[in-house]
């Protein structure tokens, strides 16, 4: 009957790049011959047709059809699809004339497009979920056609409540708080404007800027500006999400999704005019029970992150009552129900609504306690593995209330934050700094767990029962053939089988997590990255000097040179003076590197050139080489051996770094001007060449690469501090060397190679960077 009713029809579908939409398209194409589909797809960069081919037809849901048709797949299947560019988020659906023609020719329109993310910004949710159906109705009116419109909604439009939720219009429920959907639309749009404005208030911008500085340090103005703007945008998104959550809960909905869907149903009811509208309300859609294959799933959806986090041992508690019902419905049942509704046609009830709920809770409930037990057993039997190849043991849940879980998570989050703040203030480098970065990772995990609890907690606690009277009536009306082909009877689900044999294996597979210890000891990540940076394909290796090649800085070299010609009491005075001004110098250096160098190098005023040159040779052995990192020097040489050009960029003075010349093709360093001082050449303490610092380094290596015809995507850069970010970001292969805390966390997040180079073990250590006394 179903097949017969649909044969030869033209069906328009929205939201086909989504989970439900993909399954729907596949099922229709496979089961109903002679059916033509018109898919409304946002064109994106590639255009609607390309998206359909790449994002829908390439999905593994179509494997069955591909096998069936072999090489003819493109014509046999692709030929039955017309892709049109459109967007339910804009008025008129963004259709061109062709698109309008296609839509106008359809017998059935299935609207399954939605933004299902529970924390999407309120205005986005409103535009898509609330106004989407309204716009479809309006467009159909405009075209003067009245196909059967099947709108996909959600059971949760009933709101957070206990007890029965019947298949009636949302405003027919006694618990519905009546609000005008048009007012909600206006205020959501205004909320965007207000939030944007609020994010630009000076105090707020200052706060973003401070956070950017805290994260990146002295990375230079452009980098900080980019980060600040990124933080602002993220703040706006967070605020809009929060606004949605708040508005939803004020009206008794678990989240903005249910809230906007609910008002969307109401708005459609109001604006449908003479359109024949059927609404299908699924509960939580999860992986397929049987069609196209058991366990088929697309995307990483609501419950999956929670399940994976649990399996990885990150989520130790989740709120919920063991007796509560988790209303889950496999995607293939939802698809079958939609197809059955479409085939049946519009059958309004007494209230002139045609609503079908597809859920399991009221007839075949999956209890939360059972789900948790099944998951625990399953993960105990099939553990995930950590990076050291140890199986992860999952914890037994004690079903605490949401408040307690949140409190615990908040506490953990706070503790980690404090520890992190302390660490960030310590002048740590290398391995210790990486510990800070791992703390940051832990904090993010805690934050994410917190997010899950906030978002999904409401669902786990939801105790509504969605009645399925109309669904089961529809089921009863089917003949045996249809029942066999289009099963949507939730009573047939065997939960233990579904959870352990179908859903969990599929989620774990889709989650790309480690389900077995790695068999062979393959290269570690660092080894692989190291191999990449030394690949002969690379063209350029750029090195910073201080703390990258040597554990020294401009202050120590100056102290050495200055103390070279001091004796006795003068030496002591010099040491005391230098130590006293240390903190100020450090602060100046942190604020602006160029200013610091300008200020500091004035100390070389009147230093005789020939003497400095002679002393610099000694400085090389006594300070530079002594404090050098042999592994770093070996790395420079390895780059040269691999045929890469090597470049040193440093704020140090030329006479200090000149002895390093044989290592590098070029050195960009500071240079001092000279003048005549009582008949001999002396330095004037002013830089003639200001070395690039911060963002100027980006410019400088870009210029360098252009000059030597090198591709920066094929370049490697080594640096130790967040202030070198512009340089690191400019190249294809950044390497953080002995990174300080900020860079360590950035490098970790972005998957950069981190090297810990050290001074020669056992080598001489100087307490103070002073030159040996000259022989009298």
């Amino acid at each position, binding site marked *: 009957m179903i097949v017969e009713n649909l044969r030869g029809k033209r069906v328009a579908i929205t939201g086909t790049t989504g989970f439900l939409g993909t399954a729907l398209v596949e099922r229709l194409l496979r089961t109903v011959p002679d059916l033509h589909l018109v898919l409304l797809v946002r064109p994106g960069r590639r255009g609607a047709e390309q998206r359909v081919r790449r994002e829908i037809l390439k999905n593994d849901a179509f494997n069955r059809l591909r096998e069936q048709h072999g090489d003819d797949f493109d014509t046999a299947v692709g030929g039955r699809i017309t892709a049109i560019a459109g967007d339910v988020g804009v008025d008129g659906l963004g259709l061109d004339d062709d698109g309008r023609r296609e839509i106008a020719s359809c017998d059935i329109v299935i609207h399954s497009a939605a933004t299902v993310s529970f924390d999407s910004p309120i205005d986005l949710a409103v535009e898509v979920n609330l106004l989407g159906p309204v716009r479809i109705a309006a467009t159909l009116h405009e075209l003067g056609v009245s196909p059967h419109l099947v709108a996909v909604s959600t059971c949760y439009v009933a709101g957070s409540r206990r007890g029965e939720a019947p298949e009636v219009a949302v405003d027919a429920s006694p618990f519905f708080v009546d609000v005008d959907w048009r007012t909600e639309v206006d205020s959501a749009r205004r909320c965007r404007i207000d939030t944007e404005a609020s994010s630009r208030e000076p105090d707020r911008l200052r706060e973003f800027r401070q956070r950017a500085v805290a994260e990146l340090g002295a990375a230079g103005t452009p980098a900080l500006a980019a980060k600040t703007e990124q933080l602002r945008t993220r703040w706006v998104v967070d605020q809009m999400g929060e606004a949605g959550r708040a508005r939803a809960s004020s009206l008794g909905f678990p989240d903005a999704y249910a809230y906007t869907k609910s008002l969307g149903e109401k708005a459609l009811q109001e604006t449908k005019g003479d359109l024949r509208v059927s609404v299908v309300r699924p509960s939580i859609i999860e992986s397929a029970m049987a069609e196209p294959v058991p366990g088929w799933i697309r995307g990483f959806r609501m419950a999956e992150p929670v399940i994976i986090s649990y399996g990885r041992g990150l989520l130790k508690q989740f709120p919920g009552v063991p007796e509560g019902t988790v209303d889950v419905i496999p995607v293939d049942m939802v698809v079958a129900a939609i197809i059955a509704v479409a085939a049946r046609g519009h059958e309004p009830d007494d209230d002139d609504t045609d609503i079908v709920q597809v859920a399991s809770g009221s007839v075949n409930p999956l209890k939360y306690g059972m789900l948790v037990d099944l998951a625990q057993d399953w993960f105990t039997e099939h553990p995930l593995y950590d990076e050291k190849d140890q199986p992860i043991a999952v914890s037994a849940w004690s079903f605490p209330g949401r408040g307690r879980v949140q409190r615990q998570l908040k506490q953990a989050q706070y503790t980690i934050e404090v520890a992190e703040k302390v660490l960030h203030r310590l002048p740590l480098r290398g391995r210790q700094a990486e510990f800070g970065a791992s703390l940051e990772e832990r904090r993010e995990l805690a934050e994410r767990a917190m997010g899950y609890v906030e978002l999904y907690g409401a669902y786990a606690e939801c105790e509504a029962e969605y009645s399925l009277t109309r669904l089961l009536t529809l089921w009863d009306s089917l003949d045996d053939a249809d029942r066999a082909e289009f099963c949507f009877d939730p009573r047939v689900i065997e939960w233990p089988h579904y959870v352990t044999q179908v859903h969990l294996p599929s989620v774990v597979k889709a989650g790309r997590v480690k389900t077995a210890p790695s068999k062979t000891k393959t290269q570690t990540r660092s080894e692989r990255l190291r191999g990449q940076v030394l690949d002969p394909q690379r063209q350029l290796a750029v090195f910073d000097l201080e703390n990258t090649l040597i554990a020294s800085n401009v202050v120590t070299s100056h102290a050495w040179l200055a103390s070279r010609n001091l004796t006795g009491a003068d030496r002591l005075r010099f040491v005391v003076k230098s130590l006293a001004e240390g903190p100020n110098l450090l602060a100046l250096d942190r604020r602006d590197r160029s200013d610091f160098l300008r200020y500091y190098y004035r100390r070389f005023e009147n230093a005789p050139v020939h003497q400095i040159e002679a002393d610099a*040779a000694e400085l*090389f*052995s*006594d300070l530079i*080489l*002594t*404090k*050098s990192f*042999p*592994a770093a*020097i*070996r790395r420079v*040489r390895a780059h040269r051996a691999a045929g890469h050009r090597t470049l040193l960029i440093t704020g140090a003075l030329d006479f200090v770094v000149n*002895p390093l010349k*044989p*290592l590098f093709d070029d050195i960009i360093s500071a240079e001092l001007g000279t003048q005549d001082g009582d008949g001999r050449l002396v330095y004037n303490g002013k830089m003639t060449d200001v070395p690039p610092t911060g963002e100027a380094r980006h410019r400088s290596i870009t210029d360098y690469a252009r000059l030597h015809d090198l591709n920066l995507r094929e370049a490697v850069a080594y640096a130790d501090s967040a202030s070198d970010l512009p340089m690191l970001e400019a190249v294809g292969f950044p390497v953080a060397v002995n990174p300080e805390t900020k860079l360590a966390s950035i490098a970790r997040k972005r998957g950069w190679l981190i090297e810990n180079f050290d*001074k*020669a*073990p*056992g*080598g*001489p*250590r100087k307490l103070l960077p002073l030159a040996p006394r000259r*022989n009298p």
Partner: protein
Amino acid sequence: MTEPTTPEQSSTPETGATQPAIQTATKKPKRAPRPGFVLDVDRNTPPIVFHHGEGFRLEKLPPERSRVLYPAEPLPGLVDPDGAIRAALENPLGDQKPLRDLLFADMKLTIAFDDISLPLPPMRKPDIRQRIIEAVLDLAAEAGVDDVHIIAALALHRRMTEDELRHAVGDRVYDAFAPHGALYNHDAEDPEGMTLVGETRHGEEVVISTRAVESDLVIYVNINLVSMDGGWKSTATGLAGYQGLRHHHNVETMRKSKSFMDRHASELHSSNWRMGDVLKNSGMNIFQIETTVNNNTFGHDGPLSMLQKREWEWNSRDRATFLAMQAGLKRMPARARRRSFQSWLAPYEMTSVQAGEVDAVHELTTANVFKQQLVPVEGQTDVLTMGLPYICPYNVNSIMNPILVMCLGLGYFFNMYRGKPLVREGGVLIMSHPTAREFHPVHHPSYIDFFEQVLADTTDPIEIQTKYEKQYAEDEWYRHLYRTSHAYHGVHPFYMWYWGAHALEHLGQVIVVGGDTKAVRRLGFRPASTLQDALEMASDVVGPQPTITHLHNPPILMADVT
């Protein structure tokens, strides 16, 4: 403790035999020095002192099958070293004129002297080199010689620092010559500074310092601490560079030098002598001055004097000092410990001085070295044990890295024999040293890379030589550091490895007691935490109840194995 049976004291208080023409007085010791001695260990033998880097171990050796080789006691030094030097310069050996007759006003004179690697440890002031150079310069001044260059003949060793040069030649010489660039370190990588003199009949290129080649007279000042030093090796090696050295500093040559301490059985020396022929035939005039010192390394009194005594003869003061020293060393940080050991200056005394033609001089010098160091030993042993001290020729004022540990044990100490090796073929060498994975970043940069790259790949000398030597030897960066800083040449760690090639081929296994496990394994040796463990491990190779010989060195001794 029983009084062991010691062999008869040598009847004549041997003195350094100097040139026959001169009668030079030596100090009259209170008691005639006793010659070297082989102790058979019995149940009553006290624990034996093993050098162990910057520290010591006391080890009980298995009785009835162990023996200990003790060096001879220090021979008396010359009473008037300066007088002896002057006399030697006036009365040359072999076919050479008195120095005075070789000097003339407009001549080019070059004085080359042994570098920081000799003697070990460095000696107290005045250094022998200072005495000789001052004597030579006095004569040169009398003759009105203006063009004098004084060169530290360091081949591919690191450049000496100002302080080290001052210690070797004295402040007076340093201040008179260094500021004008007339006293300097040899630079074997100076393209202008090296000259190809010719080739030996074996096709070996002889390339040495241009200044030496162009000089009317080259005077080479030696301190012959061991029998390997001096002879034609002075000029042909000390003033040479990689191009020349590679002909004898290689695995094949070192494997044919059995040992390199015995010139007549040493292919290393044969090659140097061939090169000497080329130098001689090129018309170069070389005036060789060689000196020997006694083995008064740790002093007759003072904090380390017990190291020069046989353990059963320690008095209560020696024992107390040793215990206090052990306790103190244990509490000292590693760097402080190293500093304090490196600051030790040996109270060596000159026992002889020879001057004149190279071969004639060297024959006599070697005899004098043997007089102090040679200890007759009967038969080889299954297991040879040795305690490696804190110093070797290449870590003066520096760090003894694992590669140097290998070189000191398998190169120098193993080769301290004449006749046959102390340990039988396939036997086991057990050496005691901390073998820390520590390197001096300025002195040994290529060693660090050698350790991290080459040894991580292979420890086979031939493979190392063929696969890596050229790359390190011709490396720009190492060359730069050798020439401008104070780094050993890039190829130097390879020579260290080749030095031990003969031992590696000869031995069945090498075990290091008390060494850093990872570093020892990297060297291709087996680590053991105690001597007992090491002996257990050794029995896997040489069978149960092996014979054991301990080389009680330093003070230096050389085994004359029959």
